[in-house]
């Protein structure tokens, strides 16, 4: 592949230039980029909402917004961040882009379905956006009945439909992934030669396919109940509002694993590459993803310990929650052990990966506090929970997402970002993140409830700290946005394997050609086999040609 082809090599980005060639593309790589643009927009929106209410929280009394505005802001923040950013983040962007490349195939099994999923998702997102523009939603992202079904005085139906529709986008992606992984692996690529990224996406897709329909029907029931004013969860008819919570969390707990498993996949790739070692206990790590996906379905009641759920049911959910922590623990230990005896380089993606390990550990361990029933009684619906889930979601998945984005950036865009600014950004984000969310553990245990616009003065100090931290965090993201955009135009051209990584995606030029591979890939080596000489081949000439 060391050919000195004509100066302008055709690849998936420059193969065609019209707007239509993007909007009607069936190329998984382009669809991945479409998703990237969409979800970054939602991330920005959700982030802006967070900054707005963080500023409000600097004082215990209402300062510059009314309580109704505050409620709409955190609801918008939760809904956009979860449904329109984090759930599609890694699967729909990196997964879409990389799955066929890693499997050595030309495309996903159903390219048209893939494109349709983006349209469906975007349409759902627009409905969600519409609900915000036309006055907002004030139910919290959890839509608890009967508030959402009868009392809320806001655009619940529109938002509900948005989530309902976006859910089908995610189901389409999930089905596509499972079929592709089953049926389209390159010759020689057996299950236990698959990258852990693929395993993670396989597990994630199982959750998506079996879980998402339940949130769809649940949220649809809320919309129907509001629209036609018929009772479904309405206590006035003997309906049970707690039943809604069962159905909601049946999806939304597994959904938190949709929000972490792909991140774990990314981390495995990065750690292997930057320590030049196969992941310690590869099989265990692969199978633990499946264990999390399956066990994770049966712990949803841990969100309902004080909801008046039966104590016995609570105990079942509690013990299962503890058990699902074990496979996560195994993964963390295996990553750490992988570092032992490696050749470690702290490039930007690796900084994100190491940040992930630390922050996910803290977030996951505080999940154990929450799963412990007696402690849950005290900290449920306080800032302790807020801190927990930001540690796993932002400290975990968002870190993994950006880590992965940096790792595969040269592959996706054909350009290098500035390593110096990359490292500055990563460190700023890490520091800002901890400053923002660590104080929230303390303020939560002290008893400050979440979703509070007005709060007692004794909590102010910690809240101000948190707001300060969030400014640092936002600055970190801003730096990142700056140098990434810069690199698109002025970045150094990337070779096919700039990090010296193992994996089929690194054997094809950056950016890859539309059909992904010029020669049909064949795999006759184990995953992460860093002893192979090909990996270290110098491909600098290729860049000049590209």
């Amino acid at each position, binding site marked *: 592949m060391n050919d000195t082809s004509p100066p302008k090599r055709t690849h998936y980005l420059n193969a065609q230039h019209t707007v239509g060639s993007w909007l009607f593309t069936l190329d998984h790589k382009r669809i991945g980029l479409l998703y990237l643009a969409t979800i970054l927009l939602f991330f920005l929106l959700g982030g802006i909402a967070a900054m707005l209410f963080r500023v409000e929280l600097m004082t215990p009394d*209402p300062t510059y917004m009314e309580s109704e505005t505050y409620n709409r802001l955190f609801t918008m923040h939760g809904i956009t961040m979860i449904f329109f950013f984090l759930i599609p983040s890694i699967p729909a962007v990196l997964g879409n882009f990389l799955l066929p490349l890693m499997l050595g195939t030309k495309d996903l099994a159903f390219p048209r379905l893939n494109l349709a999923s983006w349209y469906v998702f975007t349409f759902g997102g627009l409905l969600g956006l519409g609900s915000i523009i036309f006055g907002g939603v*004030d139910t919290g992202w959890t839509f608890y009945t009967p508030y959402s079904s009868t*009392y809320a005085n806001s655009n619940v139906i529109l938002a509900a439909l948005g989530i309902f529709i976006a859910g089908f986008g995610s189901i389409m992606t999930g089905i596509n992934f499972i079929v592709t992984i089953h049926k389209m692996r390159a010759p020689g690529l057996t299950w236990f030669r698959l990258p852990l990224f693929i395993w993670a996406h396989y597990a994630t897709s199982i959750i998506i396919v079996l879980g998402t329909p339940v949130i769809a029907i649940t949220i649809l029931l809320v919309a129907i109940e509001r629209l036609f004013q018929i009772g479904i969860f309405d206590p006035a008819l003997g309906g049970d509002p707690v039943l809604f919570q069962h159905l909601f969390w049946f999806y939304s707990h597994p959904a938190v694993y949709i929000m972490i498993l792909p991140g774990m996949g990314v981390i495995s790739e990065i750690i292997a590459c930057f320590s030049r070692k196969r992941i310690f206990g590869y099989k265990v790590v692969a199978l633990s993803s499946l264990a999390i996906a399956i066990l994770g379905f049966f712990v949803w009641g841990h969100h309902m310990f004080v909801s008046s759920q039966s104590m016995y049911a609570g105990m079942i959910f509690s*013990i299962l929650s503890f058990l699902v922590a074990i496979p996560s623990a195994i993964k963390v230990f295996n990553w750490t052990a992988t570092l*032992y005896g490696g050749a470690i*380089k702290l490039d930007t993606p690796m900084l994100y990966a190491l940040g992930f390990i630390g922050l996910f550990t803290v977030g996951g361990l505080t999940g*154990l506090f929450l*799963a*412990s029933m007696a402690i849950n009684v005290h900290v449920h619906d306080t800032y302790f929970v807020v801190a927990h889930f930001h540690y796993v979601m932002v400290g975990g998945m968002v870190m993994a997402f950006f880590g992965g984005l940096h790792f595969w950036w040269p592959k996706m865009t054909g350009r290098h970002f500035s390593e110096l600014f990359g490292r500055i950004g990563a460190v700023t984000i890490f520091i800002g993140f901890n400053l923002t969310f660590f104080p929230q553990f303390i303020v939560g245990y002290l008893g400050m409830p979440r979703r509070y616009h007005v*709060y007692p003065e004794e909590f102010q100090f910690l809240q101000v700290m948190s707001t300060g931290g969030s400014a640092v965090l936002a600055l970190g993201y801003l730096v990142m946005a700056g140098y990434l955009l810069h690199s698109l135009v002025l970045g150094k051209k990337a070779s096919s394997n700039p990090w010296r990584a193992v994996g089929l995606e690194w054997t094809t030029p950056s950016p890859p050609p539309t059909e992904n591979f010029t020669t049909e890939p064949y795999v006759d080596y184990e995953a992460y086999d860093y002893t192979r000489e090909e990996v270290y081949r110098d491909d600098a000439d290729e860049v000049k040609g590209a």
Partner: protein
Amino acid sequence: MMNLLASFIPAQASHFAADIDRLYFFLIGVSMFFTILIGMLVIYFVIRFRRRSDDERPAPTKDIVALEIGWTIIPLVLVIIMFVWGAALFYKQWRPPADAMEILVTGKKWMWKMQHPSGRSEINDLTVPVGRPIRLTMTSEDVIHSFFVPAFRTKADVVPGRYTSSWFLPTEKGSFHLFCAEYCGAEHSLMKGWVHVVSEEEYEAWARGDDTDVAMLTPVEAGQRLFNELGCVVCHNPASGAMGPHLAGLFGSEVRLNTGRSVIADEEYIRESILEPMAKITEGYQPIMPTYKGQVSETQVMHLIAYIRSLSEE
């Protein structure tokens, strides 16, 4: 030491507060151990095994089954301890002793109403005697709320259409925060109050109504006091998000209703607004005001009217 600790945990004012904090510190211990262990190992490995040349090829990974088994079993044992400990405490929290004194609690947007066995009731305040087990029997008139007293480490959702309960044994005298912990709409964060733990004697006197100095107050003062106690101020408050109309200047003025008609706000109108708020809805407002029928005596209504009237006189 104790002082330092006190800035990280709320007051321990019920008999299981200390138990729960103990479990909490156990978990903090385990967490710190693993976080520090992993953090230190990562830092150590990163330094010790840093890449020295671009071309370095480390030895391939060797899987060690004993290690895998070890770090499966150890966390497994730890989480089982956590589960048993947490569930046992929870079981205790769930079952009130038979001799507990029962207080009835109703939540509604956005206030708490407590009814004592003696018949006395309170709004947003809960007065209880120290050292006596208290059981709360709770329900909601509208959406789900949650009765949360951090100093007692108790919390229980209050669900419309059914009764839930919660119990505690206060061990310290003083006033402690009461919060609504389940999001319930616009003024969720104003749905809070205080739990006053007093001595047995004080409580008995209070429950009989001895402390009521209402007799010594003018009707306007008594009305103002009621206005705060009953939670009217939550909605009829010029400062906050104002769920209800501001009442200054109301008396004697002409009020436009959502039917398009107008009425003069006289005593009769105000009385009706308090007892039958749904009868006439002021233009531009939602019909969300709860009825106070059965909660206020006729005398108290008169006091309220006197107070609202006084707002128009200033």
